Structure formats: structure tokens, C-alpha cells
């Protein structure tokens, strides 16, 4: 199986005196159908690494390869295009657009991609929400949804364009244990049933325990990688 994302000697530091190192010399590869958890103490650079993997940030040195292609030379538009078609983000805070209903939020990436007709997009968004157990809530705006419901809408939106890679930054950080468990189950399904690569930054031991691969970080470096046999 070839890696979806591969990084080599990846470093990111913020300019200043002295420069702040966020990520240093990280090398890893992410395989399809795999649920990867990145763990480590607060401030060790987990989020920073995730932004680099998700092409939201550019490394100070080192490479990010997506499907074997070096992403460094690509301009912002091209990187946005890859995020649109191939990546899906889920953040700790739901980050839904407040003026749009749940359904419209899920439709946004599909409309931007423009591969389907509007009716197809609407039907697919509705199906995704139903898959999340939110069929009845699709016409509600985010302020009328509970925290757990919002996060499920955000997951539906993240996978709307069938991304090869789903990136989560503490997606359960704001949820109670019941909702957390649900999200973890969804992430496992995304990897194991739908064949996507899932990378999830987390504090939560339950999330980490559910992952196929655990990457532990400390001070911007990878301390340890453990693979759990399936």
C-alpha cells in the first residue's frame, strides 16, 4: 500500500530571536484505511504538525509528499484545490458557518468543488446527515444544535467530498464521553470501512486507544511510534 501523505525531515519554526521551534525533523508516512492518533503534552507541536500535513501551513524545511508529489512548489490555489478535493478537517470547536443551516454547511465543499448538480449535492448532504443521525436537524442553523450535533455536522462536512485524508484536531476535546465515543466510532469507520486515512490529534486516551497507530510527540519531535495489531 502506498502512502497518502509522507513527510521527510519536516521542521517548522517561527521567526524571532530566538526562533520558536514548533515541529522539528519529523518523518512519517500515513497509509490509507488507517486511523492514526498523534498524542503528547499540550504545546508539543501536535496541531502545528497537523497544519503542515493538511497543507494549511508551509514547513521551514523538509517536504510533504501527497500521493508521492512534493507539495512545496505548489502555489496557494493548487494547495487549496487539494484540500478541497482530498482533505477534510475537523476541529475542536465546531467551526460551522453560522449563517448557514446544517445541510447548507455540508453542501458548501461540494458546491465549491462543483462536480455534482445542486440536487445531487443536496441529496448527498442529506444522506450524510442521516448517516450521522441528524436527518431531522438538517434545516437548523448551528446555534440551534447541541455541541455533539454540531461536531457531527462538521464531520459530515469534512467527508462531503470523499476525502482520502481526514484530519482531526482534538475533535472530542469539547464533547462529553458519550458523544466522544460516537465520534471515535465514526473515525474508525472512516478508516476501516471507507478506506480513508484518518489523522487525529488528541489528548483523550480513549481516542488514542482506538487508533491503529499512535505517534507520541515531545517538544516538536516524534518520541515514539507504536502500531497496534488489528
Amino acid at each position: 500500500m502506498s502512502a497518502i501523505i509522507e513527510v521527510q525531515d519536516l521542521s517548522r519554526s517561527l521567526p524571532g530571536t530566538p526562533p520558536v521551534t514548533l515541529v522539528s525533523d519529523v518523518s512519517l508516512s500515513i497509509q490509507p484505511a488507517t486511523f492514526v492518533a498523534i498524542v503528547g503534552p499540550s504545546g508539543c507541536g501536535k496541531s502545528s504538525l497537523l497544519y503542515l500535513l493538511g497543507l494549511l501551513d508551509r514547513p521551514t524545511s523538509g517536504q510533504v509528499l501527497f500521493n508521492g508529489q512534493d507539495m512545496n512548489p505548489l502555489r496557494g490555489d493548487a494547495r487549496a484545490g487539494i484540500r478541497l478535493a482530498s482533505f477534510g478537517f475537523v476541529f475542536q470547536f465546531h467551526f460551522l458557518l453560522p449563517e448557514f443551516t446544517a445541510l447548507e454547511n455540508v453542501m458548501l465543499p461540494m458546491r465549491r468543488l462543483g462536480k455534482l448538480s445542486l440536487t445531487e449535492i443536496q441529496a448527498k448532504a442529506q444522506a450524510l446527515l442521516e448517516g450521522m443521525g441528524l436527518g431531522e436537524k438538517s434545516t437548523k442553523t448551528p446555534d440551534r444544535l447541541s455541541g455533539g450535533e454540531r461536531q457531527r455536522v462538521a464531520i459530515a462536512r469534512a467527508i462531503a467530498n470523499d476525502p482520502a485524508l481526514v484530519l482531526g484536531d482534538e475533535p472530542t476535546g469539547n464533547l462529553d464521553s458519550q458523544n466522544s465515543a460516537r465520534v471515535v466510532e465514526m473515525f474508525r469507520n472512516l478508516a476501516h470501512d471507507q478506506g480513508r486515512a484518518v489523522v487525529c490529534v488528541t489528548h483523550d486516551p480513549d481516542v488514542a486507544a482506538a487508533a491503529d497507530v499512535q505517534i507520541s510527540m515531545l517538544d516538536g519531535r516524534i518520541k515514539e511510534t507504536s502500531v497496534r495489531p488489528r
Partner: protein
Amino acid sequence: MTGQLRLLASVAARHLVGRRRQTIVAVSGVAVGVGFFLAVSAMMIGSQNDFIKTLIDAAPHIIISDELRSPPAQPGVSLYKGAAINLRHYKVRNEVRGLKGWPEILRTVNALPGAIGSPSLSGAITLRSGGREEALTIVGVDPAIEEKVSTIQDQLRIGRLRDLESTQGGIIIGEEMARRLGLGVGDVVGATSASGKSRSLRIVGLFKRGQTQISSGLGYVLLREAQSLLGRPFIINRIGVRLADPYEAEPISRRLEARYAYKAESWQERSADFLSLLVTRNVIMYSVVSAILLVASFGIYTVVSNSVSDKRRDIAIMRSMGFSERDLQLIFVFEGLALALIGIVAGWLLGYGLMAILGSLKFPIAGEDQHLPLDRTARQYAIAAAASLLSGVIAAWLPARKAARVDPVDILRGAV
């Protein structure tokens, strides 16, 4: 592609709906700007057109007179052209006043498509009646031609220009002059010219009061009457020309003057002072209107700028979703565009209403209740729209660039 633009526009629309009060203020700014521009420019251009029409119609479009702009070269100088000679004490040749070779000039004028030339002779005479004397400039014309060339016919209170043809020794003078002489239509008045000739003339018509220089100092007679009274048979000293297109007057007059050397004055030249005044008026009008539109675009700038700062989180999430910098910039430009467009339509309605009100008002002008002359052409609507659209897009584009420059990572780091 269009679907994606529609998507960006719909995001822009939701943003605006979310800040309704600011949106209404900004739209009103544009609407007031556009509305007042339409009302003011309708009045300014309307009165200007009215004024220019009066200028054009008041007298023939071109007047060829027996004046020379520069004194002609004396025969001695033209004989030794370019020679280093200095002639002094030569006898200056006096021209016999009058347009020499005028039938030829008239033929040239009449050969221009749609143009008519009316020859006339004017000169000073004295009118006498019951011991009263008044100086008068008589103009001898061919009424059938002159009434096609000038609006003199419209200046008559009583009678018609053609009445000169049907009455032996007829004259038309101004009401003012008639009052001073104590005479009316049908009365006979004595006329004496500088050459000593005397005649009895019968008043057949009166010019309206108000047109002072006509009413108090001019009298119209038949051309041959003037020629005989002034003792200048077969001579004319002026050709008035009416053109199919008055705006051709300038080049045609230049050509006529170059060809015949006689001064050919276009209505533009005659009214140069007034016309330059109109330019000043227009500069003032467009500066005021630009200022209004500028203020209107401040409203748009404020709305879009606030929208960008309020939506930084949304900008970050949209960027993470795969919207490009350009997409984000377009969303906020669309916000400005929408504000401008709604404002323009509202401004059109406002302007239309203001013009309807202005058009219904009557003002006493020169003793008569008149409607304001208004210019209500589509052109002004288009100018107002184009100017607002341009200023609106620029006003939105400046803050929209900030939206494109928002670094999603900065926002996400702060939020997570």
C-alpha cells in the same frame, strides 16, 4: 464556474443579511448619492440644453459680415512679397464696405447640404414722428428666407415677417420703440438715412418687449427697401447661415472665412464666454456628485471592512475547506457589489421620484409660469450607475484584500 460564483455570492448575501442595519445605512448612502445626482444633473443639463438651444436659435448659426479679422495687406506689400522693403507714407486703400462677391458666397453656403443663407443689409437711420426722433438700425431682409434662418418670427408680438412683402414701405419695430414714438401698428413714421434719403414707412408688426436689443433698437424692412434708403443698391453686408447641424458651425465657419477672408462667426465663437461658463458649471456639478459618491463608498468600505474582521473565523474555516484566497476576496467584493447594486436601483427610483416632483413644479420665469427644463435621458442613469459601481467595487476591494490575506493557521492556533 458560474455555480461557484453563485456560491460565493450567496455567502456574501448571508453576511449582509446578518448585518442588516449597517447594510441599510450603506445602501441608503449609495441611493441618496445616485438619486441626487440624477435630480441635480437633470436640472443642470436640462437648463444647459435649454440655454444652448436659445443660444443656437437666437441668431443664425454662422454670421458672415463685411469685417476682416486682420487688415488686408496693402498692394505695395503684396507686390514685393518677402522682399526686404519698408513702405511708408503709402496711401491706405479704403474698402467699400459690404460683402464683395456676395452672390458667390451665398451660392457656396446654399450648396452645403441642408444649409440656407439669408443676405441682409443693415444701417443706421433716424425715425421721426410728431417731433420725436429715435435712432434705429434697420435690417433689410428677404422675409421668406430670413424666417427660415433666424427665430425673428417668434419674437413678433403683432404681425408676421411676411407682412413686409405685402405692404409697400412696411417696417417692423419693437414695442419699446413704438411706445417711445407714440405709435402703433398701421401708423406711418418718417425715416431718414445718413445719406440724406427720406421715406415714409408703415408699421406692420411689433417685436415683443423683453428682447431688449431687438425691441428698442432694431427695425426690419425689405432688403431692397434698406438698400434704397441707405443708398447702397445691390449691396449687402451680412449673410446669416442656418445649418442642418448647428454643431458643424465651427468648422464650416472656419472654411468660409479661409476662402472668402470675410469674418464668419459661428454661434460657438459668439457665445464663447457663456460656453466656458457652462464648462465651469459642469466641473462644479461633477465634483459635488463625485464627493457624494465618495461618501457613499465610505459606507460600503465600512460594511465590508467590519464584515472581514467579524468573519475571520469563517474565513479560516473556509480556507481549510479548500476555498482559495481569491474565493475569499471575491466574497467580500461581492458584498460591496451587492450594496452598490441595491443602492443604485433604490437611487434610480429616488432620482425618478425627485425628477417627477421637480418636473411638476412651475416657476415664474420672465413673467410666465414655466416648468423647469429637465434632462431625463437614460445616459444619466447609466453614468450614476457606472460611477457608483466603480466606487463601490473599489471600496469593497480594499478590505477584501485583507480577507484574502487572513492566515488560517493564525486563527486556528488562537481558537484551538
